[in-house]
């Protein structure tokens, strides 16, 4: 199963992974347009800082995902073959109940209200790393200039 690996010592805090993530998950595939769209651009990877040192925090697509156990709609699922954990593309709908956000120890699931404001859905949505289903390599990995992020097959 594919997982992200992180060598945080190499990270300079440029946040290009976040920009690449925002672009990839926007309609226009552009960070600039996503930022100007009027909705808050939301990343699914987080370069946090610990006393001025950058540390990328990623979804680890857990083997025993707490977000899946907590999901009361059943939409958050771990794919038994790819191992990818996502709340999108299943029979069940995300209804924005936030149980997954309450349960994720790494804080990498965020609430998004944009889809309701845009009138595209009745419900706000939890958004998280989906391992970029339309790409061979996740956008964050490609966007990183310092090879901090990589994909490992574990």
């Amino acid at each position, binding site marked *: 199963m594919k*997982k*992200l*690996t*992180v*060598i*945080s010592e190499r990270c300079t805090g440029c946040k290009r992974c976040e920009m690449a993530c925002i672009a990839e998950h926007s309609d226009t595939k552009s960070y600039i347009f996503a930022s100007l769209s009027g909705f808050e651009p939301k990343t699914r990877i*987080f370069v*946090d*800082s*610990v006393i001025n040192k950058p*540390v990328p*925090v*990623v979804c*680890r*697509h*857990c*083997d*025993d*995902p*707490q*977000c899946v*156990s*907590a*999901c*009361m*709609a*059943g939409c958050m699922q771990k794919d038994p073959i790819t191992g990818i954990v996502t709340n999108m593309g299943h*029979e*069940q*709908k995300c*209804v*924005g*109940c*936030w*149980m*997954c*956000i*309450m*349960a*994720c*120890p*790494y*804080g*990498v*699931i*965020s*609430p998004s209200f944009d889809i309701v404001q845009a009138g595209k859905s*009745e*419900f*706000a949505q939890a958004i998280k790393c989906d391992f970029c289903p339309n790409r061979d390599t996740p956008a964050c990995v490609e966007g990183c200039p310092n090879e901090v992020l*990589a994909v*490992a097959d*574990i």
Partner: protein
Amino acid sequence: MRYVIIGASAAGAQAGEELRKLDKNSKITIISAEKYLPYSRCLISRFVDGRLKEDNLYFKTRHFFDDYDINGVLDTKIVKIDRTAKRVVSKDDEEFAYDKLLIATGSNPAIPKIDGIDLNGVYFFHSLDNANAIIQKFEKAKRAVVLGAGFVGLESAYALARRGLKVTVIEKASQILPNQLDVTASLIIQKDLESLGVEIILNQSVSFINGTDAVESVTLSDKSMIPCDILIVAVGMRPNKDLAIECGISADKGIIVDEFLRTSDPDVYSAGDVIEIQDISTGKRITSATWYNAVLQGKFSAFNMAGIDRRYSQAIGIQNAVQFHQIPAISFGKTQINEEDEQDYDVISVHKDNVYKKLVLNNGKICGMIFVGDIAKSGFYTALIRYGVDVSEFRSKLLDYDFSYAYFKENTFDQYDPYDPLIF
């Protein structure tokens, strides 16, 4: 091996799924008193307000029983457990033999003793049957009263208000969500609900439910009267423990289980709302009707039933994520402190407009939290609570915007470690 599970909600369905993953050959039977596929009770408010259809409520798939090769027996109420013969018996005398049994009978709404509680138009807000009955009533209904401003009461109030009914919520405590929130947090959520037109009356209870055939009004403790065509009663939950008690299994507030979720009978396990847990955030023995607890207990019980020891620890009674209208909120662990043990706790909070965050600390560890308005990263804090992580060296930073899991990246919280250099 024959596994029998009584109950097909969060704990029962999860246990069935896990058992099948662990044991490909055994016979697994899930028996439900309800006639529906496993559905999420937590979603029925969104079904009542019309945003979800019945199909959307099935938290497992529509083919769940087939997919996991489970014998799903619906619309069948179990009335007796015969522990000597190791079988359970239904109301229609159907028998199911077991080698290992899981009691996941859940909880039912508490029924307050009020005159008129049996009138037409008085509903609980617990099951899909309840929801369908309420929807039937909508056409003619204009005004609703909700008794109880707990989680279920407010969910129902929000759903009815979205349907265009005039809704009044009656709560006997001095705040809404008295078990989950403190006063500051409750006022933010109360305003959010009121902005939708929901009226909330605190410090009052219902003395009489008036009407000849159907409910027409309620009389409050201050003698005032509120007309209504629908009354939703949501004053708490009671574990469905009688089945266990009648066959001699130990129970107090709920069914008593050991750390392997085994009851006083070594071949009988129990999980979900029906059991009593030791809350690590308060140290108290309680019952807890929350989805996440039930799923985890279902999972752990399955492992133990299949012979793989898994200790169930980290139990926390209060774990709620809510968003009724516009403002999200999360409460977790010990969120309320009595005056007499105030000196044992250290409280940190920030409050600006609709954003309120509060952490309750005890001996350098977080034991409770309330986040309102901004719930990002809240799971990181709940993990610090569940794992009992000492945070005393970060006390002044705990609610800073940039405080995050990055500070604890050496702590994997029992999952895959992306920072581990050995994986390359």
